């Protein structure tokens, strides 16, 4: 049914807020297209509605968001949108992952240089001062460990790049349980490449002798995805690949979980769950 100016002005604020039912919005929009006076009122109403957004408390986005965006924009360059593009995020995600890989590669190289330099320094100092030598040896060992960790990061970033560039990539947010209420995680996976990767945030340090363990939760069984550690900020990541799943035994995949388990080979879920997500 056509809407007259009075009807439009009665409903224009609800329309600007997006609160008008589609059946009422359509005739209103048809009227706006033909009525400059009501169209001007609609612009003012939309400006008021948009101003509401300014009232929100400001929060800082992560610094990585800016890096991802700039990398994404640089990769997109002059590219214009394709009609019916199936997914929106992948160019930026790939670019971001490439940026991460490149950054980690530089970092790993830098760390290796540091280690080498420290070893030389260690050798020189140890000739004259045993105590100093031990001190530098410890530092050197720590740097070697850090460099190794960075290499693992590099491999993880490489895997994530591969996962997010697949057409069937899926994403799921994992939430902290009562055992780790501030923790969260993001799991991405692709059946095409048969890989998944978890990036966890804000997990508490695992107790001595324990590690975090990622699980694929099936109807009849929990299958180990892999173990991982977290850094001093509680961030950790693990890549899951080459899993041999017998669907007849495990049943349907229901979700994912992270628990604290004894370091080493784990085959059964015994520890406390700290992150979980359901596919249901």
């Amino acid at each position: 049914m056509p809407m007259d100016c009075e009807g439009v002005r009665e409903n224009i604020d609800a329309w600007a807020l997006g609160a008008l039912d589609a059946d009422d919005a359509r005739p209103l929009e048809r009227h706006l297209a033909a009525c400059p006076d009501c169209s001007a009122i609609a612009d003012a109403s939309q400006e008021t509605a948009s101003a509401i957004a300014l009232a929100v408390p400001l929060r800082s986005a992560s610094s990585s968001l800016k890096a991802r965006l700039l990398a994404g924009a640089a990769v997109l360059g002059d590219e214009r949108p394709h009609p019916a593009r199936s997914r929106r995020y992948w160019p930026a995600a790939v670019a971001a992952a490439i940026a991460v890989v490149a950054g980690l590669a530089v970092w790993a190289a830098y760390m290796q240089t540091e280690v080498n330099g420290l070893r030389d320094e260690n050798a020189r100092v140890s000739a004259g001062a045993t105590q100093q030598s031990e001190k530098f040896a410890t530092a050197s060992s720590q740097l070697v460990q850090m460099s190794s960790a960075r290499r693992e990061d590099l491999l993880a970033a490489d895997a994530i790049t591969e996962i997010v560039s697949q057409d069937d990539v899926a994403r799921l947010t994992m939430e902290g349980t009562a055992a780790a209420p501030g923790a969260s995680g993001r799991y991405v996976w692709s059946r095409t490449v048969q890989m998944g990767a978890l990036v966890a945030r804000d997990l508490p340090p695992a107790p001595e002798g324990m590690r975090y363990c990622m699980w694929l939760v099936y109807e009849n069984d929990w299958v180990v995805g892999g173990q991982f550690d977290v850094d001093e900020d509680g961030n950790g990541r693990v890549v899951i690949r080459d899993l041999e799943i017998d669907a007849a035994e495990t049943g349907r995949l229901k979700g994912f979980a992270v628990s604290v388990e004894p370091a080493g080979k784990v085959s059964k879920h015994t520890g406390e769950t700290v992150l979980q997500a359901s596919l249901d």
Partner: protein
Amino acid sequence: MERVEYASLRDDELMDRLERRDLGAFEALYDRYGDLVYSVALRVVGDTYVAEDVAQDVFLRVWRRPEQFDLNRGKFVTWLMSVTRNRSIDERRSRGRRLRHEVLPSGYEEEDVLPSGNERDDPALATVLSDERAAVRQAMEVLPQEQKLAIQLAYFSGLTQQEIANKLGQPLGTVKTRIRLGMQKMRGALQERRGSSGS
């Protein structure tokens, strides 16, 4: 080569540069509005990861299709907030019941968007559009609570008037009146402020 001071350029000047694929202009727009876009998305979707996805999507849309902004239709920030809100609501709806019931804390939708004691701005960001934001907050603060709630449920939760009526257990006509009166008061307060500031 001429050195461009992007930070001193107006929004519409930066958008003109985006048409010419100027990455520096894009970075300047992000520096200016990135946290605001993220914060609005966060308020709507209630999840930091998803909010970052939305913010990323919004800015890449700005980069890819800067011509969609029409200066004749209003300010850049108005358009950007509209894009952000709509994109956030789409994401929220696509996640449907799961997002509303499992991610958003209980009572989140009814929470006042205006900062309470434990929800102040990140101090490092307090200067972002401080005058405009203060004016909007003042305009909202004077609204009766029921009008403010109806407007917030529409804007941040993406509910229709009928859905708001169902949620609040109020007649549809009452909700319509609350939204209309609330928006009129807000518009009046904002226009009055613009008139008094001479802008």
